């Protein structure tokens, strides 16, 4: 499955300045793993040492927090969009 991964500016600089990346896989985790291999400097800002989502970012699959869809195990389809956002929030 071909999907896109959008990065915030703070992380895009670790991916040769690209704010949108193409990625492939059947799950969010597989797609992120591919990106991590292509951009080693970006890798530790997407996944922690155990391979789980890095705690200071939140992943959204087509606008839905992946934590509601099984985390990195969330299935993706062609054309899906994964958005990475720094985990900052307040009411």
């Amino acid at each position, binding site marked *: 499955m071909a999907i896109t991964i959008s990065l915030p500016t703070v992380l895009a600089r670790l991916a040769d300045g690209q704010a949108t990346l193409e990625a492939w896989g059947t799950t969010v985790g597989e797609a992120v793993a591919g990106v991590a291999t292509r951009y080693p400097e970006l890798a530790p800002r997407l996944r922690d040492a155990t391979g789980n989502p890095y705690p200071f970012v939140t992943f959204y699959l087509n606008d839905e927090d992946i934590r509601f869809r099984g985390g990195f195990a969330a299935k993706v389809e062609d054309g899906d969009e994964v958005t990475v956002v720094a985990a900052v*929030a307040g009411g």
Partner: protein
Amino acid sequence: MPSASSGHQLVPHPLVCANCGTRQPAGPTAICPECVGPLEPLYPTDRIFPTREQISTRPQSLWRYREWLPFTGEPTLSLDSGCTPLVDAPALATRLGLGRVWLKNDAVSHPSLSFKDRVVAAAINAAVALGLDTVGCASTGNLANAVAAQAARAGLPAWIFIPHDLEVGKVVGTAIYGPHLVRVRGTYDDVNRLCAQLADRYGWGIVNLNLRSYYGEGSKTVAFEIAEQLGWRAPSAVVVPMAGGSLLTKIHKGFKEFREAGLVTGDAPRLFGAQAAGCAPIVNLVEQGGEQIEPVRPDTIARSIAIGSPADGLFAARAIRESGGWAAAATDAEIVAAIRLLAETSGIFAETAGGATVAATQALVKQGKLGAEDEVVLCITGNGLKTIEAVQGSLAESPVINARVKEVAALVGKVDPTKLATTRILDTQTLAGQSA
């Protein structure tokens, strides 16, 4: 405003990452470029703190604690926020089974009737000092009101994003100031994600995102004011409503800073967090232990604290644990009943977050976490007139009568005689016999 730095232009402090310690110059960013962790203001190590007496002579606003706010120089905007009443509430204390209760009444905060005036006062000064020409926020309502009001009087354009289905009072109470108000389909968490992306795209000062490092520090003034208003001491406990978790975290920091400065002696207060049962991810973390927030989908009338993915939730849970406190959640029905209890015993009409705070306090008393030996401050963070939908259906319909004394007499006759203390000087039968 008298100050050692009088006449100096306001300059925001530089920033430091709370996770990895990387330092950054002052700027509209709340994210560490190295580790993506949260940035905090870096205060000068040679700060000279004022004495209690010096503070007490300063104007009645949150800027009387300016040495603990993230700037040098003089603020120019929102000089009237802060210094809300601390109200003794003996009747509520009796009903709750607590030794003593004070209400920190930010329902009458200036200018927009919630504690968000404090954080926006800090953020809007930071925005102007950093040369930003537009401000904004993602909000559950109270922040929208505060940003819109304070941006209007500062002459700044504001872009404000809220969930599409907020209470009428929150929407009108924002739109009246003339901002660009945008209602987003979805929950607050959807709005927050959108604004995180917007902050990255436009050069706006989104107060609770890229100005968050400065914004959050304004909440510490709740703790400073409680300490000063109690005669430079802490209560035994403080109960705080939790949305993103920042307020409780900053109150913890505020009490710690005043103790370190020698302004407050004695034990630090135990901190207790309150959430709605329909959105209680921080309460869940406190009750279950661990170091990771599990997000929830909010389903509660307490819209102002309905944040399912609270970014400061872990920090709030840690502050609660470190202080020896606890957390509790309240159902919507309990929240409504508690709003009424608060109003009927103290004369303060709180919005739903205040109901959650009072109801959670009741739960904490039942659990034995708080008791008759405690002197407790309840943080009432917003005004009930903003969320009348929450309680309207729970109140008895008022009778409509003609302007006749005998019709009033008929109503008085229906009232329980034990509740007729104010009519002792009159004879109701005489009233009933009078011609209208």
